[in-house]
């Protein structure tokens, strides 16, 4: 069995030897380079004068509309307004300087709390800045707050951060006279293809996702520049490449989180939570439809998951999802769930400090006892042993506390998370006549190592060495269709498709072997690559069966579409704990040790699962202590580079210990749940809760600033 073992990645060889191919590594003869002129005003009417034939504007891309490229009105600093085409990137950036642009400045609004008053319009052609207002209600919250021994008021801000994958976005588009071929640093070739077909109104498009240098949610949507370059490639009939600079990337993409919660929570003296009332304000940034559609789903996730793993029956949340004159927000690792866990776990910590009770006791008192459980806002938590995991976590927590020195504190957080979303995913498996097994997934891994996990799953089903299996993805020509890699869905949904496809291939091979052995399929026993006829004792090898299948006219090319049934997600959970060192003289904070305990169902590859937890936890620690996209009152992003934007280096990361239990299996064939985002969800509140204990005052916003810690 390969499943469950820490198998080293089969993807690594090319990366380790410098033979990988990211989008900027691809070249065609005659490729031209594209660069974008970006808005320097948060809100303005624009007039662009083309001083050269190599300058293009919104009129060339989307006449009569301001999205994806504005024709009349720009709505955020960093928005692409015009593009140039030149022989290389040096000349392209020279040419940008020559564009003449006139701005007629309009009033703008940066703070979402101001924006929702609608005094100043973010975009003059939209009636309201409020993208969505909604009331979420269950039980009787007013009554529950009256019954409470204590009502705690508070405000929490989960600040805007930037995904910052080390490779930026980028695209190469080439119309070959017949169809448009697009290579993009994206999270899904198939999803980008659908977006481009809709926008361009043509269907002969092939999209290739080459190696992708990370994304963390920022490359799910089609970006304005991708639409524009694709359109221009059709127009100019020359290969066009666009790669932004890091500063452009930070000004215009990967912005996430940015949600505020004003809350009242009613509790009894013993720590029982009776009800929560609150208002959530989510900042969507500028009204770019693709991003807003993406982020509004995340806002809903924040609200629906805000009850955490607790039996809270009374809840009333008012939601305002608001446009502002800032870069549009998008999914960022966790996509709404980190904010949910942050809010409820910060509230748990605040209750524990107010009542002078241990946070684990507060959790235990309110914890869901029996699964499945449907939370008050309709999310079903499917499987697991929440109490068992909490108790196990308590042991780690106690030993961490023993380890803590005088200037150190331990904080914790418990999360439940929705993962492995539908609606479906594809897998294709084919056996070559030489016996090689090729597997192709419809999802689009970009660092997570799912290729190795798929190979493990298939090797187990077919009982062959993992070396016999080749894994591919990321080309709309090699598999019928696909959804993509996000929502911690790939291994579970993509893997289940793969599992089913492999089973179907095995069934076909047994059928072929039965014919070869003059037997019925039921009489065939298959083990480790050998088909045996139970009665006659004759046997043949997998390779022989595959070769014969071809001469017998059998197809050994299987595509399986795995359809995700309701509720369309599965729910992992866990407790994470952080030991932080706080220097009250200098205000510096450092996480010294971190312990994570998760139940993500069946762990297909613990080496890779741990890699996901560590990577996610460090991003969450980054949000707690270092990171924030800071906008000035004038609407400028003040830290649009990796010098000014704080980010953990190897110096800042703690020791991280990962433990797991496998109590809560999912009902998918893999029995797994998602883990890609869990680390980033749990770590931020665990760290902030620890700091809050150490400094003895409530923390309202992140990152923790030196001057606030002192």
């Amino acid at each position: 069995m390969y499943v469950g073992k820490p198998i080293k990645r089969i993807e690594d060889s090319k990366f380790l030897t410098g033979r990988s191919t990211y989008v900027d590594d691809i070249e065609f003869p005659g490729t031209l380079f594209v660069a974008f002129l970006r808005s320097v005003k948060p809100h303005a009417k624009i007039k662009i004068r083309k001083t050269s034939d190599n300058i293009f504007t919104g009129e060339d891309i989307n006449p009569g509309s301001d999205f994806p490229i504005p024709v009349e009105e720009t709505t955020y600093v960093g928005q692409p307004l015009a593009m140039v085409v030149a022989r290389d990137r040096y000349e392209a950036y020279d040419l940008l300087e020559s564009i003449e642009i006139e701005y007629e400045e309009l009033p703008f609004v940066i703070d979402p709390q101001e924006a929702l008053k609608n005094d100043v319009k973010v975009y003059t052609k939209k009636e309201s800045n409020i993208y969505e207002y909604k009331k979420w209600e269950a039980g009787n919250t007013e009554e529950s707050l009256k019954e409470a021994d204590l009502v705690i008021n508070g405000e929490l801000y989960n600040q805007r951060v930037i995904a910052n994958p080390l490779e930026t976005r980028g695209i190469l588009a080439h119309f070959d006279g017949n169809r448009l071929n697009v290579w993009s640093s994206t999270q899904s070739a198939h999803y980008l293809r659908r977006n481009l077909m809709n926008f361009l109104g043509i269907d002969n498009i092939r999209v290739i996702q080459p190696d992708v240098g990370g994304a963390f949610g920022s490359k799910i949507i089609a970006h304005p520049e991708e639409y524009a370059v694709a359109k221009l490639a059709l127009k100019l009939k020359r290969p066009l490449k666009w790669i932004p600079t890091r500063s452009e990337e930070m000004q215009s993409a990967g912005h996430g989180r940015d949600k505020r919660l004003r809350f009242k929570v009613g509790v009894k003296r013993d720590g029982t939570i009776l009800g929560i009332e609150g208002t959530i304000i989510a900042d969507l940034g500028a009204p770019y439809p693709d991003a807003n559609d993406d982020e509004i789903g995340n806002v809903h996730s924040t609200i629906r998951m805000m009850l955490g793993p607790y039996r809270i029956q009374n809840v009333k949340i008012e939601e305002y999802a608001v446009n502002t004159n800032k870069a549009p927000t998008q999914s960022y690792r966790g996509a709404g769930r980190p904010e949910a866990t942050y809010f409820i776990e910060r509230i748990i910590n605040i209750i524990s400090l107010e009542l002078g009770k241990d946070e684990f006791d507060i959790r235990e008192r309110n914890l869901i006892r029996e699964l499945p459980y449907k939370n008050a806002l309709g999310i079903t938590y499917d499987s697991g042993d929440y109490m068992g995991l909490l108790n196990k976590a308590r042991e780690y927590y106690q030993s961490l506390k023993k380890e803590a020195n005088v200037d150190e504190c331990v904080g914790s957080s418990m999360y439940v998370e929705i993962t492995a979303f539908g609606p479906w995913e594809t897998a294709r498996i084919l056996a070559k006549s030489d016996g090689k097994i090729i597997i192709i997934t419809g999802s689009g891994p970009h660092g997570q190592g799912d290729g190795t996990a798929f190979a493990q799953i298939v090797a187990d089903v077919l009982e062959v060495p993992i070396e016999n299996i080749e894994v591919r993805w990321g080309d709309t020509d090699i598999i019928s269709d696909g959804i993509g890699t996000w929502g911690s869905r790939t291994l579970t949904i993509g893997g289940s498709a793969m599992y089913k496809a492999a089973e179907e291939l095995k069934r076909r091979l047994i059928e072929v072997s039965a014919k070869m052995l003059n037997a019925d399929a039921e009489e065939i026993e298959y083990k480790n690559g050998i088909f045996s006829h139970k009665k006659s004792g004759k046997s043949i090898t997998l390779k022989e069966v595959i070769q014969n299948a071809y001469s017998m006219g059998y197809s050994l090319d299987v595509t399986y579409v795995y359809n995700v049934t309701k509720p369309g997600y599965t729910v992992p959970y866990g407790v994470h704990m952080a030991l932080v060192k706080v220097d009250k003289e200098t205000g510096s904070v450092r996480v010294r040790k971190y312990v994570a305990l998760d139940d993500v169902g069946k762990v297909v590859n613990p080496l890779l699962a741990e890699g996901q937890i560590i990577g996610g936890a460090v991003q969450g620690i980054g949000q707690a202590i270092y990171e924030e996209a800071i906008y000035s009152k004038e609407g400028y992003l003040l830290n649009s580079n990796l010098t000014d934007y704080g980010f953990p280096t190897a110096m800042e990361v703690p020791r991280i210990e990962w433990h797991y239990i496998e109590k809560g299996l999912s009902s998918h064939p893999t029995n797994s749940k998602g883990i890609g985002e869990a680390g980033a969800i749990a770590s931020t509140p665990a760290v902030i809760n620890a700091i809050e204990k150490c400094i003895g005052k409530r923390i309202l916003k992140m990152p923790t600033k030196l001057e606030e810690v002192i």
Partner: protein
Amino acid sequence: MKVYSPNEKTVIRLRINGQIYETEITPRKLLVEVLRELGFKSVHIGCDTSQCGACTVILNDRSVKSCTVLGIEADGSDIITLEGLAKDGMLHPIQEAFWETHALQCGYCTPGMILEAYWLLKEKPNPTEEEIREGISGNLCMCTGYLNIIKAIKRASEIISTKKS
């Protein structure tokens, strides 16, 4: 003294992974672009302010961020990129250790990270954990959270010292 004018191209000679290359460039062209145009695509660009280290190469025996060197400045120098690290098809112990410990995910920082580790282990064959952390603090990684990279470098130092003894 040689005077360079902005649009005038100059021939430079670089020894890259043991081979001599000649190329004609304008004075403003960055070494990172020169290397990539010569086919050394493992040299990556992750930022525009010399922070991330994805472009790290070994230049005359020192680790250098090639986005912060002009091509003409590097004229006559000896450069190692990741493509040159494996010898006779055998992975270098650092490459081996990165694979073993799962020290890479998307792989984009990996070339620069491995070369920085290569230089670090030349300077300090048996670094402490703190020295490794400090040693790679000029190289950002957004995927791994660094811990497996630190483990890999420690492991590589052990493999190298066992081989020597």
